[in-house]
């Protein structure tokens, strides 16, 4: 019975999730410029995509910030989680509340508050400040991904390793990190996802010269978002799909 339910329910949900994506991709092949009128099949937007330095630059900014911010947030967050885990009840509870604050702040408040900070300290906004902002909102998610794994871990393995003669850094690398590794990867993945699609915070913490994809698309909204953006999204989608499925195949093959 379960197989039947699964066979109907899951495809329905996936249909729901992918319907707009399909629409998006199909519209990238529209010969006309308006999404309201289909004027035939064409690859013109794909050609325009590769001929547009502006879009390529925005893509570079988006991807590089997502990767860099995820790396730094993961390092910062993992270390923080390890630290918090070994604190007393009061201190760790205070730290976790601190961690929660960025998550409760709406994007626009985070964005504007950081902009105020940069104006106040006279740091000119640009790539660097956008990166700082991304690390700031990503790290709490890393911490929240790693913490449960830390709690699960046997409290005394670290001590045991030290008693057996391991140095703290050895114990860190070979005892703690391996057992929390799934948490770290989830945190990194989450950071990457959040950075990739962020608009509001990026908008306020960067300069108009340095645009990521989201701010570029938003600025096109007034004149009308050209299907070039759809073409870009379609390509990204295909690329990511292949990448993730390949990685997934590999890891499940390993587990076997």
């Amino acid at each position, binding site marked *: 019975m379960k197989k039947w339910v699964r066979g109907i329910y899951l495809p329905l*949900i996936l249909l729901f999730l992918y319907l707009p994506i399909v629409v998006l991709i199909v519209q990238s092949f529209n010969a006309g410029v308006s999404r309201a009128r289909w004027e035939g099949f064409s690859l013109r937007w794909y050609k325009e995509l590769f001929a547009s330095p502006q879009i390529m630059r925005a893509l570079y900014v988006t991807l590089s910030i997502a990767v860099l911010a995820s790396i730094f947030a993961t390092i910062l967050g993992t270390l923080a989680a390890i630290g918090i885990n070994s604190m007393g009840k009061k201190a760790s509870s205070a730290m976790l509340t601190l961690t929660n604050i960025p998550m409760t702040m709406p994007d626009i408040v985070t964005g504007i508050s950081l902009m105020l900070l940069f104006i106040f300290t006279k740091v000119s906004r640009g790539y660097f400040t956008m990166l700082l902002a991304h690390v700031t909102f990503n790290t709490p998610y890393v911490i929240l991904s790693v*913490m449960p794994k830390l709690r699960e871990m046997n409290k005394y393995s670290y001590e045991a390793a030290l008693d057996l003669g391991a140095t703290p850094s050895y114990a860190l690398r070979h005892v703690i990190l391996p057992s929390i590794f799934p948490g770290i990867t989830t945190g990194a993945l989450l950071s990457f996802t959040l950075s990739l699609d962020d608009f509001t915070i990026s908008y306020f913490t960067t300069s108009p010269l340095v645009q990521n994809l989201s701010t570029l698309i938003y600025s096109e909204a007034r004149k009308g978002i050209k299907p070039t*953006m759809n073409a870009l999204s379609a390509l990204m989608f295909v690329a990511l799909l292949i990448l993730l499925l390949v990685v997934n195949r590999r890891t499940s093959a390993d587990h076997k």
Partner: protein
Amino acid sequence: MNLSPFGIGLIVFSGVLFVFLIAYGFKVHHGMHRSIFSSPYTVWMILFTVVPLFLIGYYAFTDVNGKFTLENFANFWDSNREMKRQLIGMGFSLEEMGMTARGSVNVDTLVYSLKMAFGCTVICLLLGYPAALLIADRKFKLGPTIIILFIIPMWMNFLLRTIAWMSLLEDNGLINSLMTRLGLPKLKLMYNTRAVLLGMVYNYLPFMVFPIYNALSKQDVRLSEAAQDLGANNFLTFWRVVFPLSMPGIVSGITMVFMPSVTTFFIPRVLGGGNTEMFGDLIERTFLTADNWNVGSALSLLMMVLILMSISLLRKVDPEGEGGSFV
């Protein structure tokens, strides 16, 4: 004071050093040494979260001239308050103009946003839990692959996805074109609350499914098996064993959906046709269009406090704080 990035780097550097030195003085037991790992993070948070928040607080508690005031918060309860104050200041008589009424715009909008966020969370839970349950089933070989398929849409640009929904839901959109083809009456799928809710659920569903899936997939199968051995049927096993154990995942999912959905701001404009504002739109309009950073900051602080309160309430349900479990 002109701070270059290196200047900041230096400050952080010294800050961390400072913290370390203090911690080192604490030589108590092994655990204490590890806690200094979190000191870079502490410094980071102070610099980039606490200080900016104080700046917002500064705007919230002052007026245009920098004087301390609580007026900005009063504006929340009577959205006409600032306007009335200015009109009186300009010499107009409110009574003569018939403009003495209190405005409930801010309160209404917040209530609406909370309702929508609540609705969105509930729907995500109702739709997401069964999905997670089905995917996490150990016997389901495709499980790990399918869960990946849930993440990928989140990597497509949010604006483009929402606009694609427009093409689907419009009165002459794809769905209604299909309806007409089939000889069925057209549906009013857009420019209303339904559409906004759909857009929100679409956006946040993966955030609900993922943590629940993680909580379920790491459950010890033997517990369910034991329950079955003891004579429980499928339903009882689920209700008394599986479901309670998946609570951390549910709490995590609710947290990741409810909080951001209160502050949604693009979806009501595009799918709701701008007919009803949500609090995120309102704050944006206050900051940018009305150029009123004082009231904007006050409203933002109010909203944050509200959200923080609801999260602490949730924490009471999940005392161990394992609510953040994704893995």
